Protein backbone atom coordinates (compact mmCIF):
# COMPACT_ATOMS: atom_id res chain seq x y z
CA UNK A 1 0.00 0.00 0.00
CA UNK A 2 0.95 3.62 0.28
CA UNK A 3 3.17 3.32 3.35
CA UNK A 4 4.76 0.16 1.93
CA UNK A 5 5.69 2.03 -1.23
CA UNK A 6 6.99 4.92 0.84
CA UNK A 7 9.29 2.63 2.80
CA UNK A 8 10.53 0.96 -0.39
CA UNK A 9 11.45 4.32 -1.92
CA UNK A 10 13.15 5.41 1.29
CA UNK A 11 15.27 2.26 1.29
CA UNK A 12 16.79 2.77 -2.17
CA UNK A 13 19.65 5.05 -1.08
CA UNK A 14 20.65 3.05 2.03
CA UNK A 15 20.81 -0.13 -0.07
CA UNK A 16 23.03 1.57 -2.66
CA UNK A 17 25.34 2.74 0.14
CA UNK A 18 25.52 -0.78 1.57
CA UNK A 19 26.30 -2.25 -1.84
CA UNK A 20 29.02 0.31 -2.56
CA UNK A 21 30.46 -0.31 0.87
CA UNK A 22 30.45 -4.06 0.19
CA UNK A 23 32.16 -3.63 -3.18
CA UNK A 24 34.77 -1.27 -1.77
CA UNK A 25 35.74 -3.59 1.06
CA UNK A 26 35.59 -6.83 -0.92
CA UNK A 27 37.28 -5.80 -4.17
CA UNK A 28 39.08 -2.61 -3.16
CA UNK A 29 42.41 -2.31 -1.42
CA UNK A 30 41.40 -0.14 1.54
CA UNK A 31 42.98 -1.24 4.82
CA UNK A 32 40.46 -2.48 7.39
CA UNK A 33 41.49 0.27 9.82
CA UNK A 34 40.16 2.84 7.37
CA UNK A 35 37.03 1.07 6.16
CA UNK A 36 36.19 -2.27 7.79
CA UNK A 37 33.99 -4.83 6.03
CA UNK A 38 30.37 -5.27 7.01
CA UNK A 39 31.22 -8.64 8.55
CA UNK A 40 33.78 -6.97 10.83
CA UNK A 41 31.32 -4.32 11.94
CA UNK A 42 28.74 -6.99 12.68
CA UNK A 43 31.23 -8.92 14.76
CA UNK A 44 32.22 -5.77 16.64
CA UNK A 45 28.56 -5.11 17.38
CA UNK A 46 28.12 -8.62 18.80
CA UNK A 47 31.28 -8.28 20.85
CA UNK A 48 30.29 -4.89 22.28
CA UNK A 49 26.76 -5.98 23.18
CA UNK A 50 27.59 -9.42 24.55
CA UNK A 51 29.89 -7.99 27.20
CA UNK A 52 27.32 -5.26 27.97
CA UNK A 53 29.76 -2.46 27.16
CA UNK A 54 27.58 -0.82 24.51
CA UNK A 55 24.44 -0.91 26.62
CA UNK A 56 26.34 0.51 29.58
CA UNK A 57 27.73 3.40 27.53
CA UNK A 58 24.35 4.11 26.00
CA UNK A 59 22.70 4.13 29.41
CA UNK A 60 25.18 6.66 30.74
CA UNK A 61 24.70 8.94 27.74
CA UNK A 62 20.93 8.63 27.81
CA UNK A 63 20.74 9.53 31.49
CA UNK A 64 22.74 12.65 30.71
CA UNK A 65 20.38 13.50 27.88
CA UNK A 66 17.32 13.06 30.06
CA UNK A 67 18.73 15.31 32.78
CA UNK A 68 19.91 17.98 30.39
CA UNK A 69 16.77 17.85 28.27
CA UNK A 70 14.42 18.13 31.25
CA UNK A 71 16.39 21.06 32.62
CA UNK A 72 16.32 22.86 29.28
CA UNK A 73 12.64 22.04 28.73
CA UNK A 74 11.67 23.62 32.05
CA UNK A 75 13.95 26.63 31.56
CA UNK A 76 13.00 27.13 27.91
CA UNK A 77 9.25 26.89 28.38
CA UNK A 78 9.41 29.11 31.46
CA UNK A 79 11.53 31.84 29.90
CA UNK A 80 9.66 31.67 26.59
CA UNK A 81 6.33 32.05 28.40
CA UNK A 82 7.51 34.92 30.59
CA UNK A 83 8.91 36.75 27.58
CA UNK A 84 5.80 36.02 25.52
CA UNK A 85 3.41 37.31 28.17
CA UNK A 86 5.38 40.39 29.19
CA UNK A 87 6.92 42.73 26.65
CA UNK A 88 8.97 44.27 29.46
CA UNK A 89 10.64 40.95 30.19
CA UNK A 90 11.12 40.40 26.49
CA UNK A 91 12.85 43.74 26.06
CA UNK A 92 15.03 42.92 29.04
CA UNK A 93 16.08 39.41 28.01
CA UNK A 94 15.70 38.88 24.29
CA UNK A 95 18.66 40.98 23.06
CA UNK A 96 21.08 39.14 25.36
CA UNK A 97 19.61 35.76 24.49
CA UNK A 98 19.83 36.50 20.76
CA UNK A 99 23.53 37.29 21.10
CA UNK A 100 24.32 34.25 23.24
CA UNK A 101 22.49 32.01 20.75
CA UNK A 102 25.03 32.86 18.08
CA UNK A 103 27.79 30.99 19.95
CA UNK A 104 27.89 27.39 18.67
CA UNK A 105 27.31 24.72 21.28
CA UNK A 106 30.79 23.18 20.87
CA UNK A 107 32.42 26.54 21.48
CA UNK A 108 31.07 26.41 25.04
CA UNK A 109 32.76 23.11 25.83
CA UNK A 110 36.24 24.44 26.75
CA UNK A 111 34.84 27.00 29.17
CA UNK A 112 32.39 24.56 30.73
CA UNK A 113 35.24 22.07 31.29
CA UNK A 114 37.32 24.79 32.96
CA UNK A 115 34.41 25.60 35.24
CA UNK A 116 33.07 22.19 36.13
CA UNK A 117 35.56 19.57 34.94
CA UNK A 118 34.68 16.56 32.83
CA UNK A 119 32.14 15.05 35.24
CA UNK A 120 28.38 14.67 34.91
CA UNK A 121 27.46 18.27 35.53
CA UNK A 122 29.50 19.59 32.63
CA UNK A 123 27.61 17.30 30.22
CA UNK A 124 24.27 18.39 31.57
CA UNK A 125 25.24 22.06 31.30
CA UNK A 126 26.40 21.63 27.71
CA UNK A 127 23.15 19.90 26.77
CA UNK A 128 21.22 22.68 28.43
CA UNK A 129 23.03 25.38 26.53
CA UNK A 130 22.40 23.56 23.27
CA UNK A 131 18.76 22.58 23.81
CA UNK A 132 17.31 25.52 25.71
CA UNK A 133 17.27 27.92 22.75
CA UNK A 134 15.11 25.99 20.28
CA UNK A 135 12.65 25.32 23.10
CA UNK A 136 12.64 28.93 24.27
CA UNK A 137 12.31 30.44 20.81
CA UNK A 138 9.46 28.14 19.81
CA UNK A 139 7.59 28.72 23.07
CA UNK A 140 7.95 32.47 22.65
CA UNK A 141 6.72 32.45 19.08
CA UNK A 142 3.79 30.15 19.94
CA UNK A 143 2.66 32.49 22.71
CA UNK A 144 3.18 35.63 20.65
CA UNK A 145 1.26 34.34 17.65
CA UNK A 146 -1.92 33.84 19.71
CA UNK A 147 -4.64 35.82 17.89
CA UNK A 148 -5.91 38.86 19.79
CA UNK A 149 -9.42 37.58 19.25
CA UNK A 150 -8.82 34.66 21.60
CA UNK A 151 -7.45 36.97 24.28
CA UNK A 152 -10.58 39.06 23.83
CA UNK A 153 -12.70 35.99 24.55
CA UNK A 154 -10.74 35.53 27.77
CA UNK A 155 -11.39 39.17 28.63
CA UNK A 156 -15.09 38.79 27.89
CA UNK A 157 -15.29 35.98 30.42
CA UNK A 158 -13.12 37.89 32.87
CA UNK A 159 -10.30 35.38 33.15
CA UNK A 160 -7.41 36.61 35.26
CA UNK A 161 -3.89 36.89 33.91
CA UNK A 162 -2.82 33.42 35.04
CA UNK A 163 -6.02 31.76 33.76
CA UNK A 164 -5.71 33.61 30.48
CA UNK A 165 -2.22 32.18 30.19
CA UNK A 166 -3.16 28.60 31.03
CA UNK A 167 -6.46 28.53 29.14
CA UNK A 168 -5.62 30.55 26.05
CA UNK A 169 -1.97 31.37 25.41
CA UNK A 170 -0.42 28.11 26.58
CA UNK A 171 -2.77 25.80 24.66
CA UNK A 172 -2.37 27.94 21.58
CA UNK A 173 1.41 27.69 21.89
CA UNK A 174 1.43 23.99 22.74
CA UNK A 175 1.90 22.58 19.22
CA UNK A 176 4.82 24.90 18.69
CA UNK A 177 6.27 24.19 22.13
CA UNK A 178 6.21 20.53 21.16
CA UNK A 179 8.12 21.33 17.97
CA UNK A 180 10.68 23.12 20.13
CA UNK A 181 10.92 20.16 22.49
CA UNK A 182 11.43 17.81 19.58
CA UNK A 183 14.22 19.95 18.17
CA UNK A 184 15.65 20.30 21.67
CA UNK A 185 15.75 16.56 22.19
CA UNK A 186 17.57 16.04 18.92
CA UNK A 187 20.06 18.73 19.82
CA UNK A 188 20.51 17.22 23.30
CA UNK A 189 21.52 13.93 21.80
CA UNK A 190 24.03 15.61 19.49
CA UNK A 191 25.37 17.71 22.35
CA UNK A 192 25.97 14.75 24.64
CA UNK A 193 27.90 12.88 21.96
CA UNK A 194 29.94 15.95 21.08
CA UNK A 195 30.81 16.69 24.69
CA UNK A 196 31.72 13.07 25.35
CA UNK A 197 33.94 13.02 22.28
CA UNK A 198 35.87 16.01 23.56
CA UNK A 199 36.02 15.39 27.26
CA UNK A 200 34.67 12.34 29.06
CA UNK A 201 35.67 9.02 30.57
CA UNK A 202 32.34 7.29 29.94
CA UNK A 203 29.44 7.33 27.49
CA UNK A 204 28.93 6.43 23.85
CA UNK A 205 30.91 9.41 22.57
CA UNK A 206 33.83 8.50 24.79
CA UNK A 207 33.71 4.88 23.59
CA UNK A 208 33.90 6.07 20.01
CA UNK A 209 36.88 8.25 20.67
CA UNK A 210 38.63 5.45 22.50
CA UNK A 211 38.03 3.09 19.56
CA UNK A 212 39.47 5.69 17.22
CA UNK A 213 42.67 5.98 19.27
CA UNK A 214 43.01 2.18 19.08
CA UNK A 215 42.43 2.29 15.29
CA UNK A 216 39.27 0.18 15.74
CA UNK A 217 37.26 1.64 12.90
CA UNK A 218 34.71 -1.17 13.15
CA UNK A 219 33.78 -0.08 16.67
CA UNK A 220 33.64 3.55 15.57
CA UNK A 221 31.11 2.62 12.91
CA UNK A 222 29.05 0.55 15.33
CA UNK A 223 28.83 3.58 17.62
CA UNK A 224 27.87 5.86 14.75
CA UNK A 225 25.08 3.57 13.59
CA UNK A 226 23.75 3.19 17.12
CA UNK A 227 23.82 6.97 17.67
CA UNK A 228 21.83 7.51 14.49
CA UNK A 229 19.28 4.84 15.36
CA UNK A 230 18.77 6.09 18.90
CA UNK A 231 18.27 9.59 17.54
CA UNK A 232 15.53 8.41 15.19
CA UNK A 233 13.85 6.33 17.88
CA UNK A 234 13.77 9.28 20.30
CA UNK A 235 12.34 11.50 17.58
CA UNK A 236 9.58 9.03 16.72
CA UNK A 237 8.73 8.37 20.35
CA UNK A 238 8.36 12.04 21.15
CA UNK A 239 6.20 12.58 18.04
CA UNK A 240 3.88 9.78 19.13
CA UNK A 241 3.63 11.23 22.59
CA UNK A 242 2.83 14.67 21.24
CA UNK A 243 -0.14 13.56 19.20
CA UNK A 244 -1.62 12.51 22.52
CA UNK A 245 -1.11 15.98 23.95
CA UNK A 246 -2.56 17.93 21.03
CA UNK A 247 -5.40 15.83 19.61
CA UNK A 248 -6.91 18.85 17.84
CA UNK A 249 -3.88 19.54 15.67
CA UNK A 250 -4.03 16.57 13.32
CA UNK A 251 -7.79 16.97 12.93
CA UNK A 252 -7.16 20.37 11.45
CA UNK A 253 -4.62 18.97 9.03
CA UNK A 254 -6.91 16.16 7.94
CA UNK A 255 -9.86 18.41 7.38
CA UNK A 256 -7.90 20.62 5.00
Amino acid sequence: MKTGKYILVALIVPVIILVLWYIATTFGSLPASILPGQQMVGNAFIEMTSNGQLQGDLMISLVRVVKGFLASAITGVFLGSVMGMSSKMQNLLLPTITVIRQIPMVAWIPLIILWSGIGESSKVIIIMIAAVFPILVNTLSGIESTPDGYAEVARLYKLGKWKTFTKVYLPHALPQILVGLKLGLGVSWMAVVASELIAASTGIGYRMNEARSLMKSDKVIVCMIVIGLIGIIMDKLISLLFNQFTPWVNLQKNSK
Partner: protein
Amino acid sequence: MENTRQNTGRTGNEYIINIEHLNKQFLVDKQPIEVLRDINLQVKKGEFITIVGHSGCGKSTLLKIMCGLVSYEDGTVERNGHAVAGPGPKCGMVFQDHRLLPWLKIKDNVGFGLRHLSKEEKEQQVKEHLELVGLKDFANSYPSQLSGGMSQRAAIARGLANKPTILLLDEPFGALDALTRIQMQKEILRIQEEQGTTMVMITHDIDEAIYLGNRIVVMSARPGEIKEIIKTDPVESKKRDSILFAKYKKKIYDYFFEDTEEEHDVAYVI
Protein backbone atom coordinates in the same frame (compact mmCIF):
# COMPACT_ATOMS: atom_id res chain seq x y z
CA MET B 1 -21.58 39.78 39.72
CA GLU B 2 -21.98 42.42 37.08
CA ASN B 3 -18.91 44.61 36.90
CA THR B 4 -20.16 48.13 37.21
CA ARG B 5 -18.88 51.49 38.15
CA GLN B 6 -21.68 52.45 40.46
CA ASN B 7 -25.37 52.72 40.36
CA THR B 8 -26.29 56.00 38.83
CA GLY B 9 -29.09 56.12 41.34
CA ARG B 10 -31.75 56.68 38.74
CA THR B 11 -35.04 54.96 39.05
CA GLY B 12 -37.26 53.35 36.48
CA ASN B 13 -34.57 51.51 34.56
CA GLU B 14 -36.75 49.55 32.24
CA TYR B 15 -33.92 49.54 29.68
CA ILE B 16 -31.46 46.69 29.37
CA ILE B 17 -29.14 49.06 27.52
CA ASN B 18 -29.27 52.80 27.81
CA ILE B 19 -26.84 54.89 25.78
CA GLU B 20 -26.93 58.67 25.91
CA HIS B 21 -24.68 61.12 24.09
CA LEU B 22 -21.94 58.60 23.58
CA ASN B 23 -18.87 59.81 21.71
CA LYS B 24 -15.88 57.64 21.04
CA GLN B 25 -12.45 58.47 19.71
CA PHE B 26 -9.49 56.21 19.13
CA LEU B 27 -5.95 57.48 19.32
CA VAL B 28 -4.04 56.42 16.23
CA ASP B 29 -0.44 57.65 16.20
CA LYS B 30 -1.47 60.05 18.97
CA GLN B 31 -4.06 61.56 16.61
CA PRO B 32 -7.65 61.27 17.81
CA ILE B 33 -9.92 59.60 15.27
CA GLU B 34 -13.61 60.14 15.81
CA VAL B 35 -15.45 56.85 15.47
CA LEU B 36 -18.84 57.37 17.14
CA ARG B 37 -20.70 60.66 17.46
CA ASP B 38 -23.59 61.40 19.79
CA ILE B 39 -25.08 57.93 19.95
CA ASN B 40 -28.44 57.65 21.72
CA LEU B 41 -30.01 54.22 21.93
CA GLN B 42 -32.29 52.50 24.38
CA VAL B 43 -32.86 48.76 24.24
CA LYS B 44 -35.89 47.35 26.02
CA LYS B 45 -36.16 43.90 27.49
CA GLY B 46 -36.97 41.21 24.93
CA GLU B 47 -36.27 43.46 21.95
CA PHE B 48 -34.35 42.40 18.87
CA ILE B 49 -32.31 45.32 17.56
CA THR B 50 -30.38 45.15 14.31
CA ILE B 51 -27.67 47.62 13.33
CA VAL B 52 -26.67 48.35 9.74
CA GLY B 53 -24.03 50.74 8.50
CA HIS B 54 -21.03 51.16 6.26
CA SER B 55 -17.92 49.16 6.92
CA GLY B 56 -15.74 50.99 9.44
CA CYS B 57 -18.53 53.20 10.77
CA GLY B 58 -18.00 51.93 14.31
CA LYS B 59 -20.63 49.20 14.66
CA SER B 60 -18.27 46.71 16.28
CA THR B 61 -16.90 49.44 18.52
CA LEU B 62 -20.42 50.30 19.66
CA LEU B 63 -21.15 46.67 20.46
CA LYS B 64 -17.87 46.26 22.33
CA ILE B 65 -18.61 49.36 24.36
CA MET B 66 -22.00 47.85 25.29
CA CYS B 67 -20.39 44.68 26.59
CA GLY B 68 -17.45 46.47 28.23
CA LEU B 69 -14.63 45.26 26.00
CA VAL B 70 -13.88 48.78 24.82
CA SER B 71 -13.81 51.73 27.18
CA TYR B 72 -15.58 55.04 26.60
CA GLU B 73 -14.86 58.43 28.05
CA ASP B 74 -17.69 60.63 26.89
CA GLY B 75 -21.38 59.95 27.49
CA THR B 76 -23.53 57.48 29.38
CA VAL B 77 -23.61 53.74 28.76
CA GLU B 78 -25.70 51.70 31.15
CA ARG B 79 -26.41 48.00 31.18
CA ASN B 80 -29.21 46.74 33.44
CA GLY B 81 -29.25 50.14 35.08
CA HIS B 82 -25.54 50.35 35.90
CA ALA B 83 -22.79 52.21 34.12
CA VAL B 84 -20.73 49.75 32.09
CA ALA B 85 -17.16 49.38 33.35
CA GLY B 86 -16.20 45.98 32.00
CA PRO B 87 -17.51 42.64 30.79
CA GLY B 88 -20.04 40.83 32.94
CA PRO B 89 -21.88 37.51 32.84
CA LYS B 90 -25.23 39.19 32.15
CA CYS B 91 -24.01 40.24 28.73
CA GLY B 92 -23.11 37.63 26.12
CA MET B 93 -21.23 38.26 22.90
CA VAL B 94 -20.94 36.39 19.61
CA PHE B 95 -18.13 37.49 17.33
CA GLN B 96 -18.10 37.51 13.55
CA ASP B 97 -15.35 34.88 13.38
CA HIS B 98 -16.89 32.43 15.84
CA ARG B 99 -13.72 32.46 18.00
CA LEU B 100 -14.19 29.00 19.37
CA LEU B 101 -10.95 27.89 20.98
CA PRO B 102 -9.55 25.19 18.67
CA TRP B 103 -8.03 23.18 21.54
CA LEU B 104 -11.30 22.75 23.42
CA LYS B 105 -14.06 20.32 22.57
CA ILE B 106 -17.38 21.94 21.69
CA LYS B 107 -18.81 21.21 25.13
CA ASP B 108 -15.81 22.86 26.80
CA ASN B 109 -16.06 25.84 24.48
CA VAL B 110 -19.72 26.27 25.36
CA GLY B 111 -18.88 25.95 29.06
CA PHE B 112 -15.88 28.27 28.83
CA GLY B 113 -17.49 31.10 30.75
CA LEU B 114 -19.13 28.93 33.41
CA ARG B 115 -16.33 28.85 35.93
CA HIS B 116 -18.42 29.85 38.92
CA LEU B 117 -20.76 26.85 38.66
CA SER B 118 -20.38 23.37 40.15
CA LYS B 119 -19.43 20.56 37.81
CA GLU B 120 -22.96 19.14 37.60
CA GLU B 121 -24.59 22.52 37.08
CA LYS B 122 -22.06 23.29 34.39
CA GLU B 123 -22.65 20.02 32.56
CA GLN B 124 -26.37 20.62 32.73
CA GLN B 125 -26.08 24.16 31.33
CA VAL B 126 -23.80 23.00 28.53
CA LYS B 127 -26.11 20.15 27.60
CA GLU B 128 -29.14 22.40 27.61
CA HIS B 129 -27.56 24.96 25.34
CA LEU B 130 -26.09 22.40 22.96
CA GLU B 131 -29.60 21.04 22.57
CA LEU B 132 -30.94 24.53 22.06
CA VAL B 133 -28.70 25.05 19.04
CA GLY B 134 -29.04 21.48 17.81
CA LEU B 135 -25.47 20.36 18.46
CA LYS B 136 -25.86 17.78 21.17
CA ASP B 137 -24.29 15.07 19.02
CA PHE B 138 -21.18 17.19 18.59
CA ALA B 139 -20.36 17.82 22.24
CA ASN B 140 -17.11 15.91 21.95
CA SER B 141 -16.02 17.25 18.57
CA TYR B 142 -13.37 19.88 18.08
CA PRO B 143 -14.23 23.17 16.36
CA SER B 144 -12.22 22.21 13.25
CA GLN B 145 -14.60 19.28 12.72
CA LEU B 146 -17.64 21.58 12.46
CA SER B 147 -19.00 23.40 9.44
CA GLY B 148 -19.24 27.20 9.42
CA GLY B 149 -22.90 27.24 10.40
CA MET B 150 -22.37 24.71 13.17
CA SER B 151 -19.45 26.74 14.52
CA GLN B 152 -21.63 29.84 14.65
CA ARG B 153 -24.31 27.89 16.47
CA ALA B 154 -21.73 26.68 18.99
CA ALA B 155 -20.61 30.29 19.45
CA ILE B 156 -24.22 31.31 20.07
CA ALA B 157 -24.54 28.51 22.62
CA ARG B 158 -21.41 29.81 24.36
CA GLY B 159 -22.84 33.31 24.35
CA LEU B 160 -26.09 32.11 25.92
CA ALA B 161 -24.64 29.54 28.31
CA ASN B 162 -24.46 31.76 31.38
CA LYS B 163 -27.98 32.98 30.76
CA PRO B 164 -27.25 36.61 29.93
CA THR B 165 -30.06 39.13 29.88
CA ILE B 166 -28.69 40.45 26.60
CA LEU B 167 -26.81 38.83 23.74
CA LEU B 168 -24.74 40.97 21.38
CA LEU B 169 -24.03 39.52 17.95
CA ASP B 170 -21.40 41.03 15.66
CA GLU B 171 -22.19 39.94 12.10
CA PRO B 172 -22.55 36.35 13.26
CA PHE B 173 -23.71 35.01 9.90
CA GLY B 174 -21.41 37.09 7.72
CA ALA B 175 -19.32 34.15 6.57
CA LEU B 176 -22.22 31.82 5.79
CA ASP B 177 -23.77 30.98 2.44
CA ALA B 178 -27.24 32.33 1.66
CA LEU B 179 -29.13 29.13 2.50
CA THR B 180 -27.41 28.48 5.80
CA ARG B 181 -27.83 32.14 6.64
CA ILE B 182 -31.61 32.05 6.22
CA GLN B 183 -31.79 28.89 8.27
CA MET B 184 -29.70 30.49 11.02
CA GLN B 185 -31.95 33.55 11.02
CA LYS B 186 -34.97 31.36 11.71
CA GLU B 187 -33.00 29.57 14.39
CA ILE B 188 -31.95 32.72 16.19
CA LEU B 189 -35.57 33.92 16.23
CA ARG B 190 -36.67 30.61 17.69
CA ILE B 191 -33.93 30.82 20.33
CA GLN B 192 -34.93 34.36 21.20
CA GLU B 193 -38.52 33.30 21.61
CA GLU B 194 -37.59 30.30 23.77
CA GLN B 195 -35.11 32.12 25.97
CA GLY B 196 -36.57 35.61 25.95
CA THR B 197 -33.07 37.01 25.57
CA THR B 198 -32.72 40.58 24.42
CA MET B 199 -30.57 40.72 21.31
CA VAL B 200 -28.57 43.33 19.44
CA MET B 201 -27.17 42.19 16.13
CA ILE B 202 -24.90 43.90 13.63
CA THR B 203 -25.34 42.84 10.05
CA HIS B 204 -24.36 44.05 6.61
CA ASP B 205 -27.29 42.19 5.07
CA ILE B 206 -30.26 44.55 4.81
CA ASP B 207 -32.77 41.71 4.37
CA GLU B 208 -31.44 40.13 7.52
CA ALA B 209 -31.75 43.41 9.40
CA ILE B 210 -35.41 43.76 8.40
CA TYR B 211 -36.30 40.11 8.96
CA LEU B 212 -34.81 39.96 12.46
CA GLY B 213 -35.09 43.47 13.84
CA ASN B 214 -37.98 44.87 15.83
CA ARG B 215 -36.08 48.09 15.29
CA ILE B 216 -33.34 48.72 12.76
CA VAL B 217 -30.59 51.17 13.64
CA VAL B 218 -29.20 52.80 10.50
CA MET B 219 -25.77 54.34 10.95
CA SER B 220 -23.88 56.83 8.80
CA ALA B 221 -20.33 56.41 7.58
CA ARG B 222 -17.50 57.37 9.93
CA PRO B 223 -17.86 59.07 12.32
CA GLY B 224 -20.78 56.76 13.03
CA GLU B 225 -23.98 58.57 13.85
CA ILE B 226 -27.45 57.10 14.13
CA LYS B 227 -29.34 58.34 11.09
CA GLU B 228 -32.60 56.72 11.91
CA ILE B 229 -34.13 53.96 13.93
CA ILE B 230 -36.77 52.18 11.86
CA LYS B 231 -39.48 50.38 13.76
CA THR B 232 -40.68 47.37 11.79
CA ASP B 233 -44.06 45.76 11.61
CA PRO B 234 -43.85 42.50 13.58
CA VAL B 235 -45.86 40.49 11.03
CA GLU B 236 -44.98 42.04 7.65
CA SER B 237 -41.25 42.17 8.34
CA LYS B 238 -41.21 38.38 8.62
CA LYS B 239 -42.51 38.05 5.05
CA ARG B 240 -39.65 38.65 2.71
CA ASP B 241 -41.99 39.30 -0.25
CA SER B 242 -44.36 41.72 1.45
CA ILE B 243 -44.80 45.29 0.24
CA LEU B 244 -43.76 46.68 3.59
CA PHE B 245 -40.56 44.62 3.50
CA ALA B 246 -39.67 46.15 0.14
CA LYS B 247 -40.46 49.59 1.52
CA TYR B 248 -38.11 49.15 4.47
CA LYS B 249 -35.49 47.89 2.11
CA LYS B 250 -35.76 50.91 -0.17
CA LYS B 251 -35.61 53.24 2.80
CA ILE B 252 -32.38 51.71 4.07
CA TYR B 253 -30.90 51.58 0.58
CA ASP B 254 -31.63 55.26 0.14
CA TYR B 255 -29.68 56.10 3.28
CA PHE B 256 -26.67 54.27 1.94
CA PHE B 257 -27.12 55.75 -1.50
CA GLU B 258 -26.90 59.26 -0.05
CA ASP B 259 -23.52 58.45 1.39
CA THR B 260 -22.16 56.78 -1.71
CA GLU B 261 -23.26 59.70 -3.86
CA GLU B 262 -21.30 62.08 -1.69
CA GLU B 263 -18.29 59.82 -2.02
CA HIS B 264 -18.70 59.75 -5.80
CA ASP B 265 -18.67 63.54 -5.97
CA VAL B 266 -15.42 63.62 -4.06
CA ALA B 267 -13.89 60.99 -6.26
CA TYR B 268 -14.93 62.98 -9.32
CA VAL B 269 -13.30 66.18 -8.14
CA ILE B 270 -10.05 64.38 -7.41
